[in-house]
């Protein structure tokens, strides 16, 4: 697609060490272009979620550089601007969690306008207009004034997606968004993700939804032991994997 421009997300030689000994990410590189959908696959504990969380600095990379939409932060640098750069990157990236993490003391609408109003300083009225558009887009208009506890898991995750989108992010990160859902609720969330991809959002997703990886992703990455072992378009990864570990992994989940 738009290969000519600079990448939206650029991860260079990122390492993450937990507790001084646990080497979870071992020099990861990744470039994601604008509008691309990337799916990261791998066994649990392989470091997929950690990588995703390093992109918006929920985890601090131990070494390496993260760049999102032109804002680059090096793990080593530690000056005054760093905190602000991290906040800037977070404003440009939306994240959806496995456990939704909606704010239980707010209604659905309040959840969605919280970011724009508190972080971006928008007027409440203006934020509500866009929030209602988003609610319509995820098909939950009638849940506008409910509290999250009254919603099903699928509905909660759709609200969580709307909450992230309210910040008008440049990149969406999905951290196993369907893993906590009952099987019959997975479809509605994947559906929203798929529409998001079609509308040109840049997406990096860690998921076990093979349908999403196969049909929606532009490129699929396989991680093992904190390193990429294989990457490529989904047809190649699924039909003709090169690496033995990839074959093993796919055999397990397909």
């Amino acid at each position, binding site marked *: 697609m738009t290969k000519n421009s600079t990448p939206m997300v650029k991860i260079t030689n990122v390492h993450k060490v937990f507790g001084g000994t646990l080497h979870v990410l071992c020099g990861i590189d990744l470039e994601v272009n604008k509008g691309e959908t990337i799916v990261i696959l791998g066994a649990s504990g392989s470091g997929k979620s950690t990588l995703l969380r390093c992109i918006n600095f*929920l985890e601090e990379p131990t070494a390496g550089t993260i760049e999102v939409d032109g804002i680059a932060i090096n793990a080593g640098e530690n000056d005054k601007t760093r905190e602000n750069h991290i906040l*800037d990157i*977070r404003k440009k990236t939306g994240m959806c969690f496995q456990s939704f*993490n909606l704010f*239980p*003391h*707010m209604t659905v609408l309040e959840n969605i306008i*919280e970011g724009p109003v508190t972080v971006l300083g928008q007027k409440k009225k203006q934020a509500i207009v866009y929030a209602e558009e988003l609610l319509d887009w995820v098909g939950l208009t009638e849940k506008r004034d409910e*509290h999250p506890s009254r919603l099903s898991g699928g509905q909660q995750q759709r609200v969580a997606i709307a909450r*992230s989108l309210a910040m008008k992010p440049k990149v969406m990160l999905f951290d196993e968004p369907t893993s906590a859902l009952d099987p019959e609720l997975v479809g509605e969330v994947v559906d929203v993700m798929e529409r998001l991809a079609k509308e040109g959002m840049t997406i990096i997703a860690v998921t076990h939804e093979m349908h999403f990886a196969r049909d929606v992703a532009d490129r699929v990455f396989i991680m093992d032991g904190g390193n990429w072992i294989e990457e490529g378009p989904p047809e190649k990864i699924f039909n003709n994997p090169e690496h033995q570990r990839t074959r093993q992994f796919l055999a397990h989940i397909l």
Partner: protein
Amino acid sequence: MTANTTLPGAGGIPLEAQQVLNQIEEKKSKYRRNMIIAFVVLIIFMVTTLIVLGLDFKFMAKWLPFILAGSGYTFLVAFLAISLACILAVVGALGRLSTNPIFNSIATSYVSLIRGTPLLVQVYMWYLALPQIGKALEAYGIPGIQRLLTLPAVPAGILALGVCYGAYMTETVRAGIQSIKIGQTEAAKALGMTKAQTMKRVIFPQALRVIIPPVSNEFIAMIKDSSLVSLMGVWELSYRAIKVGRRHFQSLEMLIMVAFIYWIMCMILQFVQEKIERHMARGDRRIS
């Protein structure tokens, strides 16, 4: 709240199911009835005891206005002290959770020192010992400090109670904040919120719900501990009751009366607490 025996689709409920629902409802109403009976019996028992004791109700009625006039001090002291305690508790909790070694160690020693010494000693410390500190400081060349540190009884009492309860409540608030799942902080961070925004908009409102019952506990305890200001000669509720009782050799009447006044005040507080709790429970699945 109550079982829905009359759902919109009640016609569709099979007969046996309806019977079970009715039984549940019956059990509930029986429980409520027995509860009321138990309370009424208890009240009758208490009233008869009071009559059997041969209390001088006329005497009690005569002194009631005088005693009640002391409740103003009780409320003033308790209200201002709890306000101070709340502020100290929030600041203290943030200090206890802070990664800054200076804030953290100040907050930690505050809690340790205050919780480790008797309130009675602290009250005298504020009232009797502070002026001496002032005197020492004045000797080092800070003019006017002794006068500033020589506190009248009521402010000394408010400070003593507020600082003391603030230490206990610091731990309550800290535990409340820590009870909120990490995912909430992460979601707030992911939206780009600063630490302060996260605390104010996401963590604290949720922690408040957890904190309200134990804080109400402190509140109720505070109402009663406010009688400690009588040590400094403030004519508050219990001081008046004890004085009058002693002078007329009718301590029993006076003590029972003042106990009832405290009890009623605390019942009102408890009522308010339940109201607030119910209000805070919005968004909770358990109470709809």
